[in-house]
C-alpha cells in the first residue's frame, strides 16, 4: 500500500473532531475527556488525526512539501490509536491510523527521517535490538534459569522476552519470574536466549517498513526450527507485532500475552494465588495489548458502490476498532489476587490514554513522552490507587521514569510482579 491508496480516507474526513476525544458516550469529566496526547501537547489542528488526514491530502495534492514542521507533525505522535477508536464510532470506513503510518513510510522512503531515530535504527541493523545494547548480551537476563534453550532443544511454546525486558535491569527479574511461573505450571516452554531478535514492531511504527520483514524472518525461522507452535510474550508491543503485523506479511503462529496465559492457568487451577497483596491498584491498558491488540483477520477485497453512492468493500473488510482487544484477562488476574483492590480510571479499555512511550516519541521527544505519562499518572492518582499496574515494559518504564523525575507519589508495577507476590 501507499499513501495514494488512502486518498479517499483523507478526503472522507468530515473534520468533526471526534478523534480528539474519547468516545463521547464515555465522558465522565472535563479533566479526563481527551483522547489524543499529540493534540493536547501540540494544540494545532494538524496534530490531530483529522489534521493529519488533511496534511496527507495536502501532500498528495502537492500543496505542501517537506520541511521540519511536517516531520514534527508526522512523528510527534505515539500511534496509540485512541483517535482511530473514537473516529470509528461513527466513521468505520476511514482507516486513519493506516494513513498516519503510510505518511511515515513515505517520508522514510523519501529520506525525510528524524535524526533522533537514526542511532536506534543503526543499532537495530547491527545489534538487533532497540536498547542500544550489544546483541550478544540479549540472553543474559535468563542466566542461571532452569529453562529450555531452544537454540539447542525443542518446545511447543517459546517465551519471547522482547528488547526492553531483555536489557532493562529493573525489568529482567520480571521476565525471569514470568517464564518460571509458566514452566512451574507445566507449560512446555523455552527461550531463544541470544538468538532472540527484536520483533521489529517499534521501528515499523516509526515508518521503517522493511525492517519488520527482516526481524520477522529471523524470529520465525528460529521458532520453526525449535518446533514452536505458540509464542508467549510479556511485552505488549511484541504481542501486537506478532499478532497483527507478522500474519499480515505471511508469518503465522499462535500468539498469547503472558497475562492471558496466566489468566488461563489461574482458571485451570495450575497457578494458585494464596498470599494477600493489600494494595489498591488501577490498571493501565497498554495500547498494543488493548485497542491495537485485536487479532489479524486475513482479507482481500475490492471496492464497489451500492445504493447509488455508498462505497463498500466486497467481501466485508475486517474492522479494527478496539472492540476485541485484551482487556478482561489482566483484570481477571488482578481480581484473583487476595487482598488486592482494583479501581478503574475514567479512560480505560479501548479508550485508554496512552502511556507516552510509543511511536518513536520516547526516543525523539522525551519531554512529550514524560508529559503524556504524567497525564496518565494524574488520572491514576485521581482514583485513589496506591499503584498503577500495566502489562507492557515500555509503559512501565515510562511511568517509572516520570514518577522519579517528577517526584510523583505512586507505585508502578508489572502485573507479573503482583502475581509473583501472591504466589
Amino acid at each position, binding site marked *: 500500500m501507499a499513501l495514494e491508496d488512502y486518498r479517499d480516507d483523507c*478526503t472522507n474526513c468530515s473534520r*468533526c473532531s471526534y478523534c480528539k476525544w474519547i*468516545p463521547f458516550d464515555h*465522558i465522565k469529566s*472535563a479533566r479526563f475527556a481527551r483522547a489524543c496526547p499529540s493534540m493536547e501537547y501540540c494544540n494545532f489542528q494538524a496534530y490531530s488525526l483529522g489534521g493529519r488526514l*488533511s496534511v496527507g491530502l495536502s501532500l498528495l495534492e502537492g500543496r505542501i512539501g517537506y520541511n521540519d514542521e511536517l516531520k514534527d*507533525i508526522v512523528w510527534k505522535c505515539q500511534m496509540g490509536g485512541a483517535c482511530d477508536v473514537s473516529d470509528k464510532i461513527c466513521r468505520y470506513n476511514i482507516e486513519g491510523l493506516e494513513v498516519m503510518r503510510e505518511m511515515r513510510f513515505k517520508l522514510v522512503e523519501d529520506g525525510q527521517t528524524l535524526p533522533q531515530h537514526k542511532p536506534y535504527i543503526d543499532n537495530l541493523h547491527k545489534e538487533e535490538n532497540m536498547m542500544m545494547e550489544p546483541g550478544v548480551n540479549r540472553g543474559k537476563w535468563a542466566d542461571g534459569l532452569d529453562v529450555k534453550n531452544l537454540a539447542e532443544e525443542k518446545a511447543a511454546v517459546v517465551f519471547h522476552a522482547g528488547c526492553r525486558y531483555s536489557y532493562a535491569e529493573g525489568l529482567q527479574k520480571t521476565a525471569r519470574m514470568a517464564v518460571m511461573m509458566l514452566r512451574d505450571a507445566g507449560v512446555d516452554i523455552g527461550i531463544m536466549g541470544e538468538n532472540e531478535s527484536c520483533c521489529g514492531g517499534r521501528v515499523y511504527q516509526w515508518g521503517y517498513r522493511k525492517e519488520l520483514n527482516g526481524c520477522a524472518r529471523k524470529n520465525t525461522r528460529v521458532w520453526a526450527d525449535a518446533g514452536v507452535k505458540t509464542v508467549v510474550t510479556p511485552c505488549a508491543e511484541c504481542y501486537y507485532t506478532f499478532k497483527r503485523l507478522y500474519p499480515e506479511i505471511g508469518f503465522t503462529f499462535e500468539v498469547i500475552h503472558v497475562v492471558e496465559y496466566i489468566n488461563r492457568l489461574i482458571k485451570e487451577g495450575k497457578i494458585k494465588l494464596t498470599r494477600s497483596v493489600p494494595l489498591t491498584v488501577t490498571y493501565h491498558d497498554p495500547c498494543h495489548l488493548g485497542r491495537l491488540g485485536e487479532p489479524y483477520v486475513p482479507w482481500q477485497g475490492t471496492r464497489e458502490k451500492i445504493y447509488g*453512492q455508498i*462505497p463498500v468493500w466486497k467481501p466485508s473488510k475486517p474492522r479494527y476498532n*478496539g472492540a476485541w482487544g485484551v482487556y478482561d484477562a489482566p483484570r481477571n488476574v488482578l481480581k484473583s489476587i487476595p487482598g488486592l483492590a482494583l479501581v478503574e480510571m475514567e479512560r480505560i479499555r479501548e479508550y485508554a490514554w496512552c502511556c507516552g512511550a510509543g511511536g518513536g516519541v520516547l526516543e525523539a521527544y522525551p519531554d512529550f513522552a514524560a508529559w503524556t505519562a504524567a497525564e496518565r499518572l494524574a488520572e491514576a492518582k485521581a482514583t485513589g490507587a496506591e499503584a498503577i499496574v500495566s502489562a507492557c515494559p515500555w509503559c512501565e518504564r515510562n511511568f517509572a521514569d516520570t514518577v522519579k523525575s517528577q517526584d510523583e507519589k505512586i507505585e508502578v508495577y508489572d502485573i507479573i510482579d503482583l502475581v509473583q507476590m501472591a504466589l
Partner: protein
Amino acid sequence: MALSRDAYRALEDIVGPGYISEDPAVMDSYAYQWLAETVRPNQSKFMPRPEAALLPGSTKEVQAIVRTCNKYKIKVKPYSTGWYFYGAPLTEGVIQLDMRRMDRILEIDEKNMFAVIEPYAIAGVLQAEVMKRGLNCTVTGAGASCSTLVGATCYHGSGGTSIYTGELRENLLGAEWVMPNGEILRTGSIGSGCGWFCAEGPGPSMRGIVRGALGARGGLGVYTKCAVKLSPWPGPVEFPVEGTAPAYRSPLPGNFRAYTLAFKDWDSLFEAYYRLYDNEIGYYAHRQWTMLGADLGPAFWMLYQDPTKSLDDIEEFVQKQEVKEFTEEMRRSFQLVLVGMSQRDIEYQDKVLERILEETGGWKVKKWLEPEMEQFALLYLLRLGKKNLNFVYTGGWVGNFMQVGTPDFVKKYRPLAEDATREYQEKGLLVDCGSDSMMGCVGSISGGGNCGLEQFGFYDVADKVSTAAAVEWMKHCIQEEAMHNIPPGKEGMYLAVGKTHEELQQDLAKQPATHTWQRKIKQALDPNDLGDRMYPTLDER
C-alpha cells in the same frame, strides 16, 4: 499574501511562539473543511489557506489580537471546534483564531441553574459535569462534539431536548464579546455587574444584534465567555455504559423511557407533535433515526448493534425479513424520551402518551422496546455522541429545507422535500436510502412547539460526479421552494458561501431591512472590516 513581519511579531508577542504558526502544512489543516468541495474550484477540500493560526488563551489575548488586526488591517476568523466550512477563512488574507485553549467551564451555579463556559467547552463535557449536580444542558443538534457557546451565541442551536431544555439561543444568559473594534462588551445582566442570570439585562441586551438573522458564525467579533441556562436531570451522575464498541448503551433507571413512535400517515404524526407539546410531556423529542433514510436507515441501526458487522454488510441486513418488517413498522416515526422527575411523574407521562397514541392511531415500534435497543437509544439520544453517523454512508451530506415552524407548516413542505430528492436518489447520484431521510426537532419550546424537517442527501465526497449532483440538488430544492413560496433552507446558507458578491447581494436584497441594519451594525462595530460575510450585509445603494 503573507503577513508582514511586523504584524507576525506583534501577534507572536501576544500569544507566545508556541501558539502561532504560519507553516503551510499547519495552515492546510485549518483550510481543510467539510462542504468546501461544494463551493471551491475543482471541488477542493480546502478553503482559502489562513495566513496564520493563533491559539489565544484568554480574553485579554483575544482582545490584543483583535486590536493588532485593526492596526494592521488583517481579517480575523475565530472558530471553536471548527466543524463546518463556515468556520474557515472565506477569502485570502485572513488569520484563524483556534479557540481550543479556552475550554474551561468557569462556573456551575447549581442553585440558579446556569453554567459559565468558554468557547471550547463542548456539549458532551459540559453535560458530564452538570450531570454531577443533577442538571442537564441542551446538546445542540450537531451533537456532543460541538461548542455550547457557539450554539448559544453564533447559531440558533436547537437540539433533541429542546422540547424540555429549550434552544441554546433561548438559554443564553449573557456573553462576553470581543467586538471587532477591539472593545469588550459584556451583554445582559453581567454587563451591569449583576451576575450571569439574564441575557436581557439589567445591562445591554444585544442578543438580537449579535446574532443577526442567522447567527454571525465568526463573522463579527469573538465570544470569549457565555452563560447558559441548565435544566433538571433526574438521572445518575454519569451514564452507566455497557456494550461493545461502537454500540454503547446505557441502562438508565426506571424513570427513563425511550420510544420510537410510528404512525399510519403523516397527518397523524404531525397531530402527535401538537399533542405532545400541548400536554407538556417529553424530555427529548426528535426525528433522528430516519436521517439515514426511511428505506435503509432501519437496516443500518440493526447492523450497528452487532459489533462484528460494518456498513459493508448492509445489503445482507436489508434482505432479512425481520429488518423488512422493522422498516415498514417505523416508516413514519420519530423518537421520544420520557424522563420522570418522580415515579408518579413517569407514570403520568406514560399515560398521557398512551392517550395520544390512542387518539392519533400511533404505536410504539416493538424492536425499539427491547431492553438493549432502548438502552442504546437512551444513550445515543441524550448524549448525542454518535451524531457523526450523518457521514457514515459516504463522508458527505447536505441537509436541505429545514424551515422551522408549526407542524402544519412543516407538513406542507415535507412532500416537496421528498419529491425534490427522489430523482437524484433513483439516478444513483445521491445514496438511494429512501426519499424520506428527514430529521428534525419536535415541539421545541421556542415558538410554542416549533418543529422542522431537514432532508438529508448523501453524496460521495470522493466522487466528483456525486458531489456535483449534490450541488445541483441543493439548487433544485431552492427552485422548488421558491415555486411554493418557501424560503430556502440550509442549502441556501451552504451555497451562499460560494457565491460572488453580486449574487449574494441579490439574495440579501430580498430581506432589505434586516441586511441594511446589519450593515449599519457592522459599520459601527467593525470599521476596518475584520469580519466576513457570515454576518451578511446589504451594500449601500
